[in-house]
């Protein structure tokens, strides 16, 4: 069969379509965005009446998947690693329910190419006590979606699939399988299973505990975790997910001299790992992420045979793994290319020429010059790059601009400005604004409305065309909800509005509205 060249993200999306998936509900986030986007654009998915939606945030998305699963259908929700924090509540409780037919795909971002941290989603899966899949390549990612749904329905558990940036955003040839039909609609056999009253939850949690040996049995017997023999027992190597590739890159003939346990399914396969431990003098753990497996193997006291990895910094603890880092850990001679010539200067990412945020920030910078003690609380999106212009003082997590501005304003920081995009406002800005209204906080909230979720490539923004009414509905005085078109010719007017709203003691919202320049080009060329 002809292979199709697919990103890891796209392989998962195609597998979702082929494995009888009925609904995918997600929130965009690099590097996970291309999964849902692929399904949304797929003619095949459309022909199969597959529901493919961008939701307001990861929590609303995952809860929609629980509803899909309630109807007996196969569901998927995708997000970036920090998105898993946002849907932590439904995630943990989906595990207690033992939700069948739900695959939660989380794309981690080691080295933080486009993220604010390197958190490793496997800790979440372990905490929720559910099986996890960590494919080592695009084909395996495709195949494991089929396997994940089987496992989920057989054992009564949601499944977490964890992929790192390099798998999500790397293409390889993928062979497709024969497509499965979607499940017919059905209702849960046990009417109490979706009702987490303490009386039911206690029973269900006990059931989850009792299922653990079955999860481990699957890890040991599914064939996805493998013990690969090696003659030199001085060292035993454990790889997880794509780390296997970085190991094998160091052995071009395809033969690693040391025994290897290749892990792509969790819980950890106890029998394979204890065999490796017994046979070898020491262990080396290779993971593209935080030292999740290493911590398990080593234990708190670190007694027993030496276990090397990121904890003892045999491999640097931060940053993504690569073949060079593995070579160094193996004590192999390092090859390196020429140095970067000194003449090369940094070219950091920047707001695009003509971006509406530039005009908004120019007004903010000029007005804020008058206030030495004022601060601008930023948020997550393209406009985070305003930091390089000296326009914002903070960036922490989705929605934190408004709530941090409130907290700071209440401590006397004046003026206290929040800058948030329309997409992020829809994701998690609204509740914060309600807090401001309820406490009559003296803040100016700027909602930069560029019509789309720009950073992730132009997905629809959930609050689109509704911003004014949302703010009004939350209780902001309509006289203090101001709109402006951020253009050079409106610079003086923009500054005047900002100054007036700073002078107003209460909650003000300013909405600079102009479509993203990249999106605008796309729309023009589509015409």
């Amino acid at each position, binding site marked *: 069969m002809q292979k199709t060249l697919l990103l890891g993200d796209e392989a998962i999306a195609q597998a979702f379509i082929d494995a009888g998936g009925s609904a995918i509900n997600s929130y965009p986030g690099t590097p996970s965005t291309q999964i849902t986007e692929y399904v949304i654009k797929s003619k095949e998915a459309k022909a199969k009446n597959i529901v493919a939606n961008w939701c307001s945030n990861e929590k609303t998305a995952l809860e929609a998947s629980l509803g899909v699963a309630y109807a007996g259908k196969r569901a998927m929700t995708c997000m970036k690693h920090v998105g898993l924090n946002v849907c932590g509540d439904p995630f943990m409780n989906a595990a207690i329910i033992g939700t069948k037919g739900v695959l939660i795909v989380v794309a981690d971002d080691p080295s933080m190419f486009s993220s604010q941290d390197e958190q490793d989603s496997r800790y979440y899966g372990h905490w929720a006590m559910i099986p996890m899949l960590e494919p080592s390549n695009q084909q395996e990612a495709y195949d494991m979606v089929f396997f994940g749904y089987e496992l989920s329905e057989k054992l009564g558990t949601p499944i977490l699939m964890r992929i790192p940036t390099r798998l999500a*955003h*790397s293409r*390889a040839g993928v062979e497709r399988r024969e497509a499965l039909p979607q499940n017919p609609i059905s209702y849960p056999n046990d009417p109490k299973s979706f009702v987490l009253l303490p009386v039911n939850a206690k029973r269900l949690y006990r059931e989850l505990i009792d299922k653990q040996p079955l999860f481990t049995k699957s890890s040991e017997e599914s064939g996805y975790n493998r013990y690969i023999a090696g003659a030199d027992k001085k060292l035993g190597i454990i790889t997880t997910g794509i780390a296997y590739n970085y190991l094998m890159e160091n052995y071009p003939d395809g033969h690693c001299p040391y025994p290897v346990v290749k892990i792509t399914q969790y819980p950890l396969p106890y029998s394979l790992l204890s065999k490796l431990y017994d046979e070898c003098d020491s262990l080396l753990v290779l993971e593209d992420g935080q030292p999740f497996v290493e911590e398990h193997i080593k234990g708190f006291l670190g007694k027993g045979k030496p276990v090397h990895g990121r904890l003892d910094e045999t491999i640097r603890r931060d940053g993504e793994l690569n*073949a060079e880092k593995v070579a160094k850990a193996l004590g192999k001679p390092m090859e390196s*290319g020429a140095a970067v*010539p000194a003449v090369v200067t940094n070219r950091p990412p920047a707001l695009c020429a003509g971006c509406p945020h530039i005009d908004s920030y120019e007004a903010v910078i000029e007005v804020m010059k008058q206030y030495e003690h004022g601060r601008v609380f930023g948020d997550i999106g393209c406009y985070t790059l305003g930091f390089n212009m000296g326009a914002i003082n903070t960036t922490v997590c989705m929605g934190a601009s408004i709530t941090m501005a409130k907290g700071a304003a209440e401590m006397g920081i004046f003026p206290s400005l929040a800058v948030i995009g329309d997409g992020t406002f829809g994701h998690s800005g609204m509740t914060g604004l309600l807090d401001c209204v309820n406490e009559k906080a003296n803040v100016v909230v700027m909602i930069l409305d560029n019509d789309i979720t720009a950073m992730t490539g132009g997905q629809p923004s959930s609050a689109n065309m509704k911003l004014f009414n949302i703010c009004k509905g939350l209780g902001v005085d309509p006289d203090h909800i101001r709109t402006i078109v951020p253009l050079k010719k409106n610079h003086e007017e923009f500054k005047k509005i900002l100054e007036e709203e700073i002078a107003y003691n209460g909650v003000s919202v300013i909405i600079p509205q102009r479509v993203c320049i990249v999106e605008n080009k796309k729309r023009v060329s589509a015409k």
Partner: protein
Amino acid sequence: MKKDIILCGVGGDGIVSVAKIISDAALKLGMNVKQSEIHGMSQRGGSVFSHLRISSEPIFSDVIPEGKADIILSSEPMEALRYLPFLSPEGWVITNSDPFINITNYPAMEQVNAELGKLKHCVSFNANEIAKQLHARGNMVLLGAAAPYLGIDFAELEEAICNIFGRKGQEVVDTNIAAIRAGRDAK
């Protein structure tokens, strides 16, 4: 046959589309392909790169280790220099000589050209100028210039262009084929 190629440029210049064409041609030839790229914040006008690996043998890592790249294909001269640590001692640099200046501290062109001049194997030419005459994109001209070093027949690349751009109509296909031919003949 195995080629490790770094494609680099500036976010938004579409260098990744070149990777797609080479990948498509390699896949048709039954070769293994791995091609990694960068999305999200890092692509906003910043330095971007893609690792493309094609091989008749299985490929493990999605990224090319340092010192192993056979080719650096760059849409921008300073960006070509940025990825030199990846280049193997016998590797080729194929680069556009037309700078893209979106930063205030871009070095003097004489310095950039002097560094390119030190390389053992380097092809540097103004691909944008050629592209302009053809109403094409500089990337396609660069692909044409890189063609002799890819280990893939020129006709295969032309076929890949037909596959990838076919949906956009014959005119787009013809423009892009004219561009890679012009790139091939440029030196």
